[in-house]
C-alpha cells in the first residue's frame, strides 16, 4: 500500500542524504520525495511517498524517527490530510488542437504559463487523481515534456505538526 509520510527534520547539511541513504540501504521504495524549508528556518519538511506492506511501512517510520536529525514523522494515511502536487506539462499545440487544449485547461482549472507557436506549457496543481487525469486528457495532443514536484501533504484542521 502507498503511504505519504511527512518528515520534519533539522535544516542541516547532509540530512537529505541520511534520509535517502536509509531508503536505499534498507531496500525501501521512494516514489517521490519533496523537500524545502518550513516557516522555521531551522527545520525542513520532507514529503515522501513510499509503498510496502504494513510491517515495512512501520519499519520505515521507526527507522526515519531513529535518525538523529529527524524531529517528527507523520503518516498521512493515519490522519485526514490534504495532498497536492504541481506539474508543468509542455504540450504540442498546433492550430487544430489549440482550442481543445485551452478547454481542457479551463475544465481542470489549470493555467497556461508559457506559449509558443507550437506549444503550450500548462501548470496544474491538484491531488494525484487530478494531475493524472489532465495528463491523460493532454496525452493525445502530444506531451513533449513533463515535470512533477512530487506530493506535499498537510493534515487538515487547526492542529500543526511541530
Amino acid at each position, binding site marked *: 500500500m502507498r503511504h505519504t509520510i511527512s518528515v520534519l*527534520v*533539522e535544516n542541516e*547539511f*547532509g540530512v537529505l*542524504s*541520511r534520509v535517502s*541513504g*536509509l531508503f536505499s*540501504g534498507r531496500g525501501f521504495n521512494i516514489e517521490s520525495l519533496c523537500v524545502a524549508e518550513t516557516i522555521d528556518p531551522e527545520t525542513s519538511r520532507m514529503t515522501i511517498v513510499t509503498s510496502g506492506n504494513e*510491517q515495512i511501512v*512501520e*519499519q520505515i517510520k*521507526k*527507522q526515519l*524517527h*531513529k535518525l*538523529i*536529525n*529527524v*524531529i517528527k514523522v507523520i503518516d498521512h494515511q493515519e490522519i485526514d490530510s490534504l495532498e497536492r502536487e504541481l506539474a508543468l506539462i509542455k504540450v504540442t499545440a498546433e492550430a487544430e488542437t489549440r482550442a481543445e487544449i485551452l478547454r481542457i485547461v479551463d475544465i481542470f482549472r489549470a493555467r497556461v504559463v508559457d506559449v509558443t507557436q507550437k506549444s503550450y506549457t500548462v501548470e496544474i496543481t491538484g491531488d494525484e487523481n487530478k494531475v493524472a487525469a489532465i495528463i491523460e486528457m493532454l496525452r493525445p495532443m502530444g506531451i513533449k515534456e513533463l515535470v512533477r514536484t512530487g506530493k506535499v501533504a498537510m493534515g487538515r484542521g487547526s492542529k500543526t505538526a511541530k
Partner: protein
Amino acid sequence: MKKTGAQILLESLRLEGADIIFGYPGGAVLDVYDELFNFPIKHILVRHEQAAVHAADGYARATGRPGVCLVTSGPGATNTVTGIATAYMDSIPIVVFSGQVPSALIGNDAFQEADIVGITRPCTKHNYLVKDVADLARIIKEAFYLATTGRPGPVLVDIPKDVLRAATTFHYPDEVKMRSYNPTYKGHPGQIVKAVKLILKSRQPVAYVGGGTILSEAALELTEFSRLLTIPTTTTLMGLGAFPEDDPLSMGMLGMHGTYRANMAVTECDLLIAIGARFDDRVTGNLEKFAPNAKIIHIDIDPTSISKNVKVDVPIVGDVKDVLGNIIKTIVEEDIEAYKKSLQPWNKQIHEWKATYPLAYKKKKNIINPQYVVEKISELAGEDAIISTEVGQNQMWTAQYYKFMKPRTFLTSGGLGTMGYGFPAAMGAQAAFPDRLVIDIAGDGSIQMNIQELATVMQYRLPVKIAILNNHFLGMVRQWQELFYDKKYSYTCMQVQPDYVKLAEAYGAKGFRATKVEEVEAVIKKGFATDGPVIMEFVVAKEEDVYPMVPAGAPISEMLLV
C-alpha cells in the same frame, strides 16, 4: 583565553573522562598530536587504524565507557570503516575523531582527502563534519552523549585542519539540547503489567537474552528475574556473560550453533521473553518455525528492533535494567511459589534435553581437539578473565565451551563478524585493565588479519595472551564447504603460515606451541604465568566441525549433532 580547535578537542576529551586515546597521526591531525605531546591523556600508537577502532571498541565493551580513537584524513579515516561498522552492528559506544583536509580544499580531491562523513553515514549512529571551531565543543559533547545513550553506537567527528588551528573561547556545555533525540528509558507501566500477566499465565517460558542486557548493565536484574521465577534462560552470542552459565537455569547459547536444549526450548515454548535481543537470522533460523507456539514479549530500547523480524505480542520500549526492575517489582510475592511449581515439568523437560544431547565432541587421542583447548582455558583463566575471539570456528567453540560468569568478560564481533577483531579488542581491554588476564582466542586465519599489533602490545606492555587454534584452514568456511559444497575446499587451506613461536619472538614476545593433547594444559599454564604478551599456538585437528549446527534457513529445531 582563546583555545585552538586542537586544544578544545583534548580539553573536551579530558572533561568527558577519556583516559586513553587509540590513534595514529598524520598530516591533518598534526596540530592535535602537537598538543597531545604534553597532555595528561594516554595515547596508544597502534600499527593500523582499523586496530585503533577495534581497541577502542574492546575498551568500551570491557569497561562500559566510550572508547576514543584519533586518526588522520583520507586513508587514516577509511581504515577505520570496518572498525566502525563492527561497533555499529553490536551497538558499542565509541567516538572516532578524524582529521580532514582544510575546509577550502574539501571537494577538490585534495591529498589524503576522503568524504568520511559520507562513507560512514550508514554505519555510524550519527556523524559530524565540523565547519566552525565555535561548534566544536558542542559537537563533541553531543557525540559522546549520542554514543552512550539510548541504543549506543559509534559516532564520528570529522574536523578539517583549519578548524583544528582556528581559535575561539572555550566553553564546554553542561548539557545537551537536541530536540530531535529523546530515547525512551522507562518502560510503559501498562505494558509491564501486561507482560507480568502473560508471564504468570505461561507454563513453558524462555528468557532469550541479548547484548542489550549487558549494554544496559542489567545482568543482576536478569539473574534475579530468572531465578525468582525459575525461568530457563538462553543467551545470544552477544548476551554471553549476562547470565552465569553454572546456574541450572542457564541453557547456554541458542541459534545456529546453539545448544540442543536452548533450541528445543525456544521451539517448544509458550512464551518467549526477548530481553535486549534483536531476532538476528543466526538466532532464529527459519522465521516461520521460530518459537511457533509462543506469545512474545520484547524488551528493547530501540523501537526499530521491535516487530522488525518477528511479530511481537507485548512490546516494551525501554531500558532493560529499568523494565526488568519494574517487572520484578510488579510480580506479587504470593504468586511466585505456585508459578514456580507450575514450571517444574518444563524445567524437567529441559534437563532431559540436556542429558540426552549435551554439548559434546568426539575426543581424539593423538591430536588436539580445539574444544578441549577452550575448555582448559575456561578452567584455568578464572572468572575475571576477559576473553575476546576472532570470527569463525574459534568464536563458536569459545561461545560454546567457555563458561562465562560475568558481563563484560566476552568481546566478540557478533553482528558484522569481523575477522581480525579479537586481538586489537583484547589490546583495548588490557589497556583499560592492566592487571586482568586478557585472552584472545583466535584462528590461524583471523590472527593474521591484525597481527601487526604485536608491536603495539610490546611497546605499551599490554600482556595480552593469544591462543591460536591452528587447523591450517579457514575453518568455518571449510566446514560449510564440507557440509554443503561437496567437500570442495576452494581456497580455504592456509598452507603457508608463519612460525608463530618465532613470530612472537621476532616482536620480543614469548611463543609456545602444543602439538599433543598432553601439552595443552602445560602450555596454557606457562602462557598465563609469563609476563608480557604471549602467543600460544595449538596445532589442532584439521577438519573438526562446530556442532550442533543448524543449516542456514532451516528451523533451529533441526540441528546437525555430533
